[in-house]
């Protein structure tokens, strides 16, 4: 058993036309036992930067608290909100600091950067980033997610279509994974608003 598979999760981010989506399942499990079905894995850092984390739940929660600390200091000193690519570098840096005793999380960052340009980034547990303009996945359902996203993704989707695509991909993938599922939530980040929906999904 790998420590990254102790709690179980599925996280996906996708780029659309002037928007990004980030979604995750909502299962909180301890190996095979499901303890809760309302566990958030996607966190808002600010209106245009969201981070989803797959992996060990305790490390995810601690990291969210640490990110909020660093972001508060950033906003006080710089007097502006952090850009998603800069935040991604911060996350990478914080993870690599623990290179020889890492946080067991694999984060996915999604947001809108300069001129509301869509941005997504995913990392391994020691902070190696990957940047693309299509989609990124993480969690125990990552292999399933790669398959469905590759098949269903198209570039330049409008927010509503992107929402549909992300939702279908996530649900199909986590349904094949016994450690992920039990609910799903999706965020679609647009320049003027954020669409947040909880999906009705298989509760098994």
């Amino acid at each position, binding site marked *: 058993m790998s420590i990254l598979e102790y709690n179980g999760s599925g996280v996906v981010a996708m780029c659309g036309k002037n928007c990004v989506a980030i979604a995750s399942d909502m299962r909180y499990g301890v190996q095979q036992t499901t303890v809760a079905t309302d566990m958030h894995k996607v966190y808002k850092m600010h209106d245009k930067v969201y981070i989803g984390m797959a992996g060990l739940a305790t490390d995810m929660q601690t990291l969210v*608290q640490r990110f*909020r600390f660093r972001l508060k*200091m950033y906003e*006080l000193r710089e007097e502006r909100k952090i850009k998603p690519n800069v935040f991604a570098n911060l996350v990478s840096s914080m993870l690599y600091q623990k290179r020889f005793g890492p946080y067991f999380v694999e984060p996915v960052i999604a947001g809108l950067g300069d001129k509301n340009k869509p941005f997504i980034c995913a990392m391994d547990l020691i902070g190696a980033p990957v940047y693309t303009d299509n989609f990124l996945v993480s969690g125990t359902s990552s292999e399933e997610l790669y398959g469905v996203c590759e098949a269903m993704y198209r570039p330049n989707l409008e927010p509503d279509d992107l929402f549909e695509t992300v939702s279908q991909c996530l649900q199909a993938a986590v349904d094949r994974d016994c450690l992920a599922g039990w609910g799903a939530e999706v965020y679609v980040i647009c320049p003027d608003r954020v669409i947040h929906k909880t999906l009705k999904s298989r509760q098994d």
Partner: protein
Amino acid sequence: ENLNETSSSKNPQLAMSGRRYDGRTTTFSPEGRLYQVEYAMECISHAGACTGILTKDGVVLAAEKKVQSKLLDQEHNGAPSDVSSEKMFKIDDHIAVSVAGLTSDANILINHARIVAQQHTFTFQEPMPVEQLIQTMCDLKQVYTQYGGQRPFGVSFLYAGWDPHCGFQLYHSDPSGNYNAWKATAIGGANDATTISLLKQEYKEDLTIDDAILLAIKVLSKSLDTTTLTPEKLEFSVLKPGQQATEAKFHILTPKEVTEYLDRAKAIREKEEAQKKKEEEEKGKK
């Protein structure tokens, strides 16, 4: 404040005996004084004045800007800030300070306060109680009056804060590391004692934020000894309730907002003067 009256600059005889005991911060004088701490307070009296007024629905901070110049790029290309200005600084969402003294010293303490506030939030997952933050700041300032041989910080702060335990609060701390809670007070400038006595007369428990800003303008104009007040000379900020009951919001007034209040204060003053003149004329007739 009462220490100022016996400071060496106003009493030459004491200045002579002071010389022997003022070299090190960690040495008491025979009269039981720490001269370096007193000299730090002297430094603050040369800085721009700050006033703070506590009301039931917020705290108002007002300050005199010492650096006034059209060349100053205060607004960073026209984008006003709710985080910092020449004299006011946000520490956390629910705590802000105004500074009197050496801004470079203030920056160190403010940075430290910001980190301490976030460390508390990280550990306890709730905002730091205001008095606790001030205690940590003062404990730091006190270190420089007892250890190390380094000079004290030449800054006094007025802290405006809100927490769910004690509501809105106003505190003052000085270079000695001493602090007090106040309903209204003033620091810095040559006339803070005058300002405080004016506040004592005019302060009322049931002021609103609006009233408090107008009162601050009134007392500052008397202590700065000028009636021509402009947004270039004065800065105002308010800490008031936020969107939710458990939140507070810090806002530094824009020059436009300051001008509105200055105009209102001017109208009130002119009305009062006209009233006074009328009463004196009637008295004279009798």
